[in-house]
């Protein structure tokens, strides 16, 4: 057999595998496959990962992050980026907590500019009022939406780069939250609010009832308020993107802003609306985190939160170049990201190493996005 024939034979043998690999790579479900493969791969080495308690715990970590990532998906779809999501979460958290807290310590919060007007030793303006939690949630949502809309307005009206405007918003609103609270947490929130962070709607118990009393640690939350809230938000966001004219506008703006404008898409209004939606989603995340940590915290979206939000969205497959992405992808990306954090915790890596690994995974996801785009373009030719 000649060398040329061998090469040809090797090529023919390798072709189906390459085609299979390419098909997987370009599949809409690529990240889902990757998540399943990763989960099963690590589960072989760390069996505790598949235990019901750990799975339930991982799900609990998914929901607040997913709420913020849904908002970031909208922004990335129009080829923008929102760096102020964490700051919006912190500001909204504080704004709502100020309204509903039932007591505040003068020693801690006496220096707040709100002290004596909106905040006092007997709490916020709606302290102990039955509607306090509901009004506070409304305040948080409106605050988030306004912050987002403000950024969107400057980006659309003055053509500021999104990263610059949202960086300014990050600095401004995170500092404002620290100033309002003097960098303190606002605690003593009503149970009706804190239950949103930890309350179970449906709990389950796996195993035989061997003792008269089932240990509390063996009762696992299955359906929780954060799950219902975030799932509802995801469904609404999905419908908005796939079933409405606005959704088509969002993709059109992301693919080619000028062409969209020429085609009659109200680009400016779409940008403002998209950032307002991102702010709203950040506020929802802020609500869930505040309820979970039982306090309004100015630093709630600080640290590596932004890395997690953008990372999960990009890993899900939403393109940084705009015009490509789905809410379902983002949900899978968040799932993968939480799974990654959970397994890295299980591997006993330090916080710094965990962030380094996460950064590397996000880089890989961004490179993969470039590769997929090139493959699709080549196939289209």
């Amino acid at each position, binding site marked *: 057999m000649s060398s040329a024939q061998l090469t040809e034979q090797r090529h023919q043998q390798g072709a189906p595998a390459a085609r299979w690999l390419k098909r997987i790579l370009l599949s809409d479900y690529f990240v889902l496959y990757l998540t399943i493969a990763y989960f099963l791969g690590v589960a072989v080495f760390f069996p505790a990962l598949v235990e019901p308690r750990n799975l339930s715990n991982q799900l609990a970590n998914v929901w607040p992050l997913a709420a913020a990532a849904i908002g970031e998906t909208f922004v990335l779809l129009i080829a923008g980026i929102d760096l102020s999501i964490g700051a919006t979460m912190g500001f909204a958290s504080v704004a709502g907590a100020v309204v509903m807290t039932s007591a505040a310590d003068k020693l801690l919060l006496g220096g707040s500019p709100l002290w004596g007007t909106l905040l006092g030793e007997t709490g916020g303006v709606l302290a102990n009022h039955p509607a306090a939690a509901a009004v506070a949630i409304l305040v948080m949502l409106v605050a988030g939406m306004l912050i987002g809309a403000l950024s969107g307005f400057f980006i659309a009206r003055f053509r500021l780069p999104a990263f610059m405007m949202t960086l300014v918003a990050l600095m401004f609103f995170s500092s404002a939250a620290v100033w309002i609270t003097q960098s303190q947490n606002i605690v003593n929130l009503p149970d009706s609010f804190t239950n949103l962070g930890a309350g179970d709607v449906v709990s389950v118990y796996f195993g035989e009832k061997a003792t008269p009393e089932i240990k509390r640690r063996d009762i696992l939350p299955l359906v929780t308020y954060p799950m219902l809230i975030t799932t509802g938000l995801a469904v609404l966001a999905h419908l908005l993107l796939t079933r409405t004219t606005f959704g088509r506008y969002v993709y059109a703006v992301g693919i080619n802003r000028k062409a969209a404008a020429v085609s009659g898409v109200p680009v400016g209004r779409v940008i403002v609306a998209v950032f307002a939606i991102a702010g709203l989603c950040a506020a929802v995340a802020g609500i869930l985190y505040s309820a979970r940590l039982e306090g309004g915290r100015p630093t709630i979206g600080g640290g590596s939160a932004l890395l997690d939000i953008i990372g999960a969205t990009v890993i899900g497959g939403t393109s940084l170049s705009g015009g490509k992405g789905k809410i379902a992808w983002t949900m899978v990306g968040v799932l993968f990201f939480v799974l990654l954090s959970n397994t890295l915790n299980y591997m006993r890596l330090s*916080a710094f190493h965990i962030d380094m690994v996460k950064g590397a995974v996000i880089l890989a996801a961004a490179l993969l996005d470039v590769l997929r785009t090139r493959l699709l373009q080549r196939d289209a030719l």
Partner: protein
Amino acid sequence: MKATTKWIAAGAAVALGLAISMPSKAADTTVCYAFQDLSTGFWVAGHQAIVSTLEKNGVKVVELNGAHDANRQLEQVKDCIAQGGAGIILTADDGDSGTVVVAAAQEADVPIATFNRPPSDMSKGIVVVADNEAVARAAVDAMNAEAQKKFATTGKKLKPLILMGDLADPNAVKRREGFMNSIAKHPELFEKPVEVATKWNSQTALAGLEAAMTADPEIDFIFTSSDFLFPTIQSVLDPLGKWKKAGEPGHIILGGLDGDDGACKLIGDGFVDSTGVQDVYLEAELALTGILDAIKASEARPNAVKLDPGFALSQANYKEMADKTWGCQVLKSKS
């Protein structure tokens, strides 16, 4: 695509079967130590004491660094519980987040001890903490002795300043209280104290102290709520020509709290007058025995407050007390 999906489903089933059939090492006792960075000598020494003692006791230690992110720490602790942790030792970022984490552990029937930084609600969990008010008061009392000598010479009231910690941390609140109580005992010696917030952050402390020293150059009595701020104090006083040893003209009476190696050296060198000493080794021991006893007794929700009485190390008792000060032991081992 159907074939691909089938292959993936088959692979998934095989791997899941393998995962479930493999025995887990649940028989080992695992204790998780959740902390927030190791930014000062006190935390480094505490971390070493806890980890090495647990390992000596044959306990598997899982270290969880929350990196000053309350939500991350909560998730880490929940992960630890889900992955079979038998007990938790916690140093939270602040008292409020400590309360939430302690509640999460107790909700899951896992015993938890807080090391040195207590939760706001001290009725839950094993709370190991220095008697911060008493220790701070003892340290400031020792400074007062120097203040009295100065007052006798100059006949002028002293202007005190306190660098406060993060007041969301009960430790910081109690240390401030100890300082104020000691100062209040001598109205003839002191003017109204100046309070500078630090949030346990050296940059914040630097900015605040510089501003205070500029606004009021008469300040001549400084107490820091934690010894790790002495280098910051030095960087402010040195350019002003006020970083002097005790007995030298222009010496500002200085005191702190922790008893770390830096403070031990500065007291030995004569720059600092006193420090309140928390016994990091005793506190680590109290946290460990509390958790290990609870695990042995299958006690899911032990509640107790274990106090470290502490003491003051000063210029006056340095020779007798240095050997009992953890920071001086660290200093000795370094040299």
